[in-house]
């Protein structure tokens, strides 16, 4: 039987992996300590040793381990990505999550039994695109960008054999993943090539007479009054001026929370729900995993009567960016 609503949780470190496993994840996803994945942050991710420990811990409890290799390899450093695929194939990982067709071809040819997932960074928003990766490289699952409404998701599901995974909760990209160069325009490093957006090395916080200012490579992303809590300067979530009006011109600092749509996602046959946040703490992972485990179990038991428990929503809001959440593009008026 195909998978239904597997809970896939972020593991930025071994303690986070254990937190996900212990709190009911069906799978965890992780990356190596370099720019082969889209959470290339100092102090995060896995080396060979912690990877082996993590895989054993997860597999002992029947939890799958997926590796994100979802940045775009570049000519000079292509061997690094190939090596990462080889590591994945030989350490007993359950699947790798890729964005780049060239890398998929390498994985397919070199390790034909390795299960391939299409990353959200692959920007596939239609079944024609998803089926391209299926036919050429045999991908078995695709993670859809956070841009489609649920009826649009349904149209993809109905026209492909590929399992579909959706984002359920966490940081929200307002742009199509894999199609956003705002970060490299401002500071030279993009998610596609460097594996991080608005990277820490380009960030400056400065208290000024006008308030706390946050900058990215010198560009003023936002300025906070004394009674406001300053947020990380992710550049699509700052306040800017358009025609004399200062506001969150692209998106508010907010998180995605699609829990109320779980029954509909179950009806569509969505294979897995992904929780964002490899850069977040083990405590975040534990809490979010626990809540989503309970929610998914409740949906599977009684989809007709499912309502998100207010206590769950309160817990999730506490760990949301800006303590706010949105249904994002799943809900059409957001667009």
């Amino acid at each position, binding site marked *: 039987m195909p998978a239904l609503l597997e809970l896939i949780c972020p593991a930025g470190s071994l303690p986070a992996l254990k937190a996900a496993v212990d709190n009911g994840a069906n799978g965890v996803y992780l990356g190596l300590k370099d720019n082969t994945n889209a959470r290339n942050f100092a102090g995060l991710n896995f080396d060979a040793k912690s990877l082996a420990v993590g895989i054993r811990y997860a597999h002992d409890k029947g939890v799958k381990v997926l590796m994100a290799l979802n940045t775009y390899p570049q000519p000079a450093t*292509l061997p690094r990505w190939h090596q990462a695929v080889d590591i994945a194939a030989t350490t007993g990982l359950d699947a790798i999550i890729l964005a780049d067709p060239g890398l998929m071809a390498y994985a397919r040819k070199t390790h034909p039994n390795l299960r391939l997932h299409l990353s959200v960074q692959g920007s596939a928003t239609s079944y024609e*695109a998803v089926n*391209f990766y299926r036919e050429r490289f045999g991908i078995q699952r695709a993670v859809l960008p956070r841009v489609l409404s649920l009826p649009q998701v349904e149209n993809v599901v109905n026209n492909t054999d590929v399992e579909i995974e959706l984002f359920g909760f966490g940081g929200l990209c307002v742009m199509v993943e894999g199609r956003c160069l705002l970060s490299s325009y401002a500071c030279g490093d993009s998610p596609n090539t460097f594996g991080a957006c608005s990277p820490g090395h380009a960030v400056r916080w400065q208290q000024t007479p006008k308030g706390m200012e946050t900058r990215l490579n010198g560009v003023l992303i936002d300025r906070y009054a004394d009674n406001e809590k300053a947020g990380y300067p992710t550049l699509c979530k700052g306040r800017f001026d358009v*025609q004399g009006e200062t506001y969150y011109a692209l998106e508010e600092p907010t998180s995605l929370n699609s829990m109320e749509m779980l029954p509909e996602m179950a009806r569509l046959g969505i294979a897995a729900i992904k929780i964002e946040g490899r850069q977040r703490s083990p405590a975040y992972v534990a809490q979010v995993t626990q809540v989503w485990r309970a929610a998914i179990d409740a949906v599977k038991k009684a989809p007709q009567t499912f309502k998100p428990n207010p206590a769950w929503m309160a817990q999730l809001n506490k760990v949301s960016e800006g303590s706010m959440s949105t249904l994002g593009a799943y809900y059409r008026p957001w667009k």
Partner: protein
Amino acid sequence: MKLSLGPLLYYWSREDTLAFYEEAAGWPVDSLYLGETVCSRRHLLRLPDWLDLAEKLTAAGKEVVLSTQTLIESESDLKALRKMVADGRFLVEANEWGAVRLLAEKGAPFVAGPTLNAYNPDTLAILAESGAKRWVPPVEMPREMVKAMLAATAVPESMETELFAYGRLPLAFSARCFTARHYNLQKDDCQFRCLDHPDGLTMRTREGDDFLTLNGIQTQSAKVMSLAHRIDELHTAGIDLLRLSPQSRHMGRVVEVFRALLAGDIAASAAPEKLDKLMPGQPCDGYWLGEAGMAYHPM
């Protein structure tokens, strides 16, 4: 090197769009990219209109390429895409991998657009096998990487390279319309406010620096990428076509400056001054140098 006029990224009235291309037929560009690549709600010209234009421009001696929508969301988007691919009279630029699938199935040669994210030779080779005869590197790709791509054995010699060389940089796409958001409208009822902003809406930092440009669901740079002063480097790098991105004013004169550069009638060092008054924003060239895209080095 040849010159191309990239797809029109903004939404202009039907009259203005047709007048623009009527003029463009007389400009010294070799190729023109036609079609709506940004937003499916922009409908003042539909496929039959673009095809009419394409016939006229072909008759005027131009190469015409039909450019596909970058973000495909609905079945009607796919229907429009299939129609464009099915026509078969003109070369097509594929801007996402669904279009690549359809073009490869048909066995039609195509142009691999900048949003296909060909960052390495293996991926470019897959595009070549699928029928790409020309590719446009991601706009953030630096000079040294373009050279490495073209030097790789996996990439066929015959592959043409078209570089985004002039215009506001298309940086990001979203499901959300930022122009509608600015006017507190929903995308489905946007009242086509893009029509009021023929070069997009400038988004400034809170200290007044022009930073980005809102163009419906697309976000562009506020600065204008220009590689005119680096024309010699473009030759050396093996670039075959320079893409100039349409703007509402002075486009014909921008084309003339690039044509004069290619002909050697003006020196590369004189280009910035010639372009200065023709540009809707400050220049930038950082991506080409492997730096922040907004950086600028006048040489």
